């Protein structure tokens, strides 16, 4: 399948992902970049564009890079997919030949620091995830935002906690056979889900992902160069983004992840339909996000996400295997690099478990409840194609 965009992914690096690795964020980025360079058969000097997912003082010196440009990009969980698009633009305008999109976070570790240092002032509220005025009312962290959407979904469609639970069980089934996943060797049942404690009603513990540490890097180049570098490039067939604060004005904020505009552009560009998608990797840090996106992308009708998952469509051997590495719930949480990295592996035919045989197309999504006082569901859709 050839890309309309003439853009492909020539290499990927994925470090160990897990809880309390005790490795700094910057070092995780360095490891991911080195893995990606080796994967793409490239040297440091070949990287002439650098996109850092997040915001931090630049780390080019530590990474040993001197590119034509280096950008910091942050639009929440939509950032990794957005970085592929920004890289594609740089390649198309001949500003760079090989762009590295790099992520590394150590959410669950206290970063190792030089001694002596002071612990004063390190304890703080997670205000960064409180989105303005809602924080006045005790709304803290992304789970509460998704809980408001889950409650609305339940009210509109009769969705139940069990419907959410089946998403957790299905994604854990994928993770339980994926070495390195958080849920490896630990399948769960619906009863386990129902017995898990309430976090932000109606979301229980097993409806929520846990932050993990890890790095990821992807190298974007032209389709032709990618084909010269590797025998398994992944084509970028289409992409789209949407940053819809309008959902706050029109009242749809808690009923929609703002998929439609991003999806329409991505599918038009890729010249495929939803029925042509072989495997899906959805940005879903909470179970409700999987249901909402299955409906909004059109894999099933609005309100039917629960029965769609219950029928096994998204599980191993289903009609649209979804989050085949365990996703963010049971695999690892590397923001949008969780779905993106698994999509790349699937398109290469190299998924360590649950490879979807003959898969030619993969939908990858990214979503961020950021930007704007009430959060605004930034969304990004990406359609990847196998070059086989």
């Amino acid at each position, binding site marked *: 399948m050839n890309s309309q965009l003439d853009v492909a992914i020539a290499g990927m690096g994925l470090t160990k992902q897990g809880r309390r690795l005790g490795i700094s964020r910057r070092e995780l980025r360095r490891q991911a970049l080195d893995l990606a360079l080796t994967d793409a058969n490239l040297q440091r000097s070949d990287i002439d564009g650098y996109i850092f997912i997040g915001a931090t003082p630049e780390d080019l010196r530590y990474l040993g890079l001197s590119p034509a440009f280096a950008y910091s990009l942050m639009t929440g969980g939509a950032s990794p997919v957005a970085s592929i698009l920004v890289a594609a633009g740089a390649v198309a305008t001949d500003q760079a030949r090989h762009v590295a999109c790099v992520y590394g976070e150590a959410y669950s570790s206290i970063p190792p620091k030089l001694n002596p240092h002071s612990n004063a002032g390190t304890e703080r509220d997670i205000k960064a995830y409180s989105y303005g005025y809602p*924080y006045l009312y*005790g*709304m803290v962290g992304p789970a*509460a935002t998704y809980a408001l959407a889950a409650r609305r979904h339940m*009210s509109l469609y009769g969705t139940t906690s069990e419907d959410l639970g089946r998403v957790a069980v299905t994604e854990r089934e994928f993770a339980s056979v994926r070495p390195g996943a958080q849920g490896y060797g630990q399948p769960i049942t619906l009863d386990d889900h129902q017995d898990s404690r*309430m976090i*932000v*009603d109606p979301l229980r513990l097993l409806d929520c992902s846990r932050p993990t540490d890890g790095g990821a890097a992807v190298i974007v180049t032209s389709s032709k160069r990618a084909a010269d570098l590797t025998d398994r490039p992944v084509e970028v067939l289409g992409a789209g983004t949407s940053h819809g604060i309008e959902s706050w*004005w029109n009242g749809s904020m808690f009923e929609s992840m703002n998929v439609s505009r991003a999806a329409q552009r991505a599918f038009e560009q890729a010249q495929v339909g939803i029925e042509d998608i072989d495997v899906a990797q959805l940005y879903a840090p909470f179970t409700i996000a999987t249901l909402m996106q299955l409906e909004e992308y059109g894999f099933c009708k609005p309100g039917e996400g629960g029965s769609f998952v219950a029928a096994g469509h998204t599980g191993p051997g289903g009609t649209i295997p979804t989050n085949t590495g365990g996703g963010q719930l049971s695999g690892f949480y590397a923001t949008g690099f969780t779905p993106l990295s698994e999509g790349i592996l699937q398109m290469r035919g190299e998924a360590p478990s649950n490879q979807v045989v003959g898969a030619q197309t993969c939908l990858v999504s990214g979503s961020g409840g950021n930007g704007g006082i*009430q959060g605004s569901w930034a969304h990004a859709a990406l359609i990847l194609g196998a070059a086989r």
Partner: protein
Amino acid sequence: MIPVDRPLPGDVVEDAIDQPFWDACRDHVLLIYRCRICAESFWPAGCCPQHGMQDMIWVTASGGGTLHTWTVVHQKYSKSFTEERTVVAVVKLDEGPLMHTNLIGSNGIDLQVGLPVGVVFQTIASESVIPVFQLRNQSETSAPR
């Protein structure tokens, strides 16, 4: 019990554009931001998507609305909130805008989307009053608004 050290409006927004709203709360009056060209209402202050900030004005809202969605926060993510269980709600004001708030006098059980609610003002610090909501009984809901 008034929780200690909870955030105040000025802690979470970087400028004073909403100051009239918070000042009015001290007088137990709920304001909304209205575009006088198209009569659309907004909270918090911001541009009308049709008309920008050409002719915006703070006007008094009815104080009534309906429960749009809610969650009960069990996990103590924040040290700033000491209540046992907080009901965080989104209310759809009668004038149209959505507003994050607390639903007081409710344990979060037996709630339904669409239940009528009314504003109550809660003093959270000496000079700081925030609007919260409580369920309205049936006789009140039949009153014109």
